[in-house]
């Protein structure tokens, strides 16, 4: 199929001072399902549009199989694209929407029909080929947009927030449709979203972008379990990770008013001391699912239980969310569905400290034990990374975990 590389891509819009994409480098392997994720305005769609050729690249090179594509017309890039608002042609039937590109290329009628029928069959559109887009549901329209891109038989499929206009049930349905489609076609999929559930469920690889800078890229598990910085940790996961500034004191993490005292595993305390955090502040992060109410958790981690008043209890059926304050920070815990606490109740919550994450308050980079969890960086050596404390590494890219 095709290997793609973006090398020091930069995008500045005319009349702007700040670059929408300051310096973006990425390799995309053949057949990979890559998801660009990030908050609104992070530059992920801009990068996608540069790959498609719909936006000019200010500087840097975009290559496909080693060939520079910067000045190649969109139609000659071997790329198909699915848009957020579908961009179907309202005056054409489903069949004509899907066949239009092929008709203009003067392909034989039987070849066009075969290609459209195959796509329609795969996407469950066979019964709708004579309808106009106005007579289709949102999910059906999205499938037509996918079919139109499929029929193009492109090496690369670009999808720009294709599910954002659909309701929750349809989104789940379409996620599996797109995943199946990728398995079936086996070509490169580059998918833009701000919905991390989409990213986690579909991606072979996630590229998390903020302000046009890659914050981290790697497998979904990598980004979730081994975030490279506080931004990644806070972005991945729903509800997002809880953060609290605490001071390292021996094997304890202590709040300023001494009301919160958490006991760290010995190994954690040792590496934090080794890295020079003894007596200093550190950002402590813990995911909602690592906060427990069960007595067994209290027995397992006896020094890690806090008493809190619940500001809000949100029963969600399969689970319950507890919202509470710790040291004037809003926290959320994801607990079992059978918990029967009410809003305003007091609760004892136990933190599963071996799953905690630590970030430098200045650089917001993850603090990791030397030689244990190191993130490979394209611009820094491992020894540089081991000594990044106190250095502002904005936009540092982290990927693989050794």
């Amino acid at each position, binding site marked *: 199929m095709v290997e793609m590389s973006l090398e020091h891509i930069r995008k500045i819009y005319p009349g702007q001072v700040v670059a929408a994409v300051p310096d973006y480098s990425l390799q995309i392997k053949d057949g990979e399902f890559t998801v660009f994720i990030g908050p609104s305005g992070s530059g992920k769609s801009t990068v996608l*549009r540069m790959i*498609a*050729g*719909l936006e000019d690249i200010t500087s840097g090179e975009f290559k496909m199989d080693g060939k520079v594509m910067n000045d190649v*017309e*969109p*139609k*000659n890039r071997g*790329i*198909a*694209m699915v*848009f*957020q*608002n*579908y*961009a179907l*042609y*309202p*005056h054409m039937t489903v069949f004509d929407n899907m066949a*239009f*590109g092929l008709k*203009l*290329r003067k392909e034989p009628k039987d070849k066009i029909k075969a290609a459209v029928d195959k796509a329609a069959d795969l996407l469950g559109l066979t019964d709708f080929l004579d309808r*106009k*887009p*106005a*007579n289709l549901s949102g999910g059906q329209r999205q499938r037509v947009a996918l079919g*139109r891109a499929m029929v*193009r038989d492109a090496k690369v499929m*670009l999808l720009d927030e294709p599910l954002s206009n659909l309701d929750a049930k349809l989104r789940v349905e379409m996620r599996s449709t797109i995943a199946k489609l990728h398995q079936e076609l086996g070509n490169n999929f580059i998918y833009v979203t701000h919905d991390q559930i989409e990213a986690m469920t579909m991606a072979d690889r996630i590229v998390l972008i903020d302000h046009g800078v890659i914050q981290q890229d790697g497998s979904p598990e990598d980004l979730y379990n081994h975030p490279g910085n506080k931004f990644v940790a806070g972005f991945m996961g729903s509800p997002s990770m809880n953060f609290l500034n605490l001071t390292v004191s021996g094997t304890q993490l202590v709040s300023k008013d001494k009301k919160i005292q958490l006991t760290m595993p010995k190994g954690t305390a040792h590496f934090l001391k080794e890295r020079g955090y003894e007596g200093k502040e550190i950002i402590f992060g813990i995911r909602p699912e690592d906060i427990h109410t069960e007595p067994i958790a209290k027995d397992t981690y006896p020094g890690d239980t806090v008493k809190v008043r619940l500001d809000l209890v949100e029963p969600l059926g399969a689970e319950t969310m507890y919202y509470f304050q710790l040291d004037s920070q809003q926290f959320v815990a994801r607990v079992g569905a059978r918990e029967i606490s009410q809003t305003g109740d007091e609760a004892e919550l136990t933190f599963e400290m071996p799953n905690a994450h630590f970030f430098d308050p200045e650089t917001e980079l993850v603090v990791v034990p030397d030689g244990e969890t190191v993130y490979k960086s394209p611009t820094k050596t491992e020894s540089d990374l081991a000594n990044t404390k106190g250095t502002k590494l904005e936009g540092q890219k982290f990927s693989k975990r050794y």
Partner: protein
Amino acid sequence: MNYIFSILPDILTGLNITVGLFILTLLGATPLGILIAIGLRSQFFILRWLLNAYVWIIRGTPLMLQLMFFYFGLPLATDNRLVFPKMTAAVLVFVLNYAGYLAEIFRGGIQAIPQGQYDAAFVLGISHRQAFSKIILPQVFKIVLPSFGNEVINLIKDTSLGYVISLVDILYIAQGHAVADVSLMPYVIVAVLYLIFTALATVIMKKIESNYREWA
């Protein structure tokens, strides 16, 4: 009643001028309006400036004045080197005038098409020209249809302005009868004819709109 039937055939002889002027204007002004609309969105500043100036002048001066300038003024200004027959002058002025109005209507329609429609076309491997003619224009027509319909009805009525350059249309003939016979009836007949034309145009435009409605 006898009087009506006695003058009606004579008035109807002016129909070929009225209808001819209407059809020729529509056939000339519509494509020209589209071209000007495209030009108004051009990258070239000078072209854009010239076309904006043209539209401003056309929309800012009365059609009657434009007719008089073209038919009476140009021969004066060029020592009779530039003289047009009445019908030619009328068609040229009407086409240029209506193209200016339609250009603004089409420009609005083109701007209303989402960028995604262009993007989808270019990524699908469709050339700019094909994208515009096969994808954008059909959608533009749907958007501009109500405004276009208004212009069609205005045009039917405006054909009567040919009278100022003595174009022998239905109004010109009716005026002759009204003066000769000292009667209002010729004017009433012409009014009824215009009402029939506008009703017919309205029905046709509504029919076209309903055909477009299925892909709303």
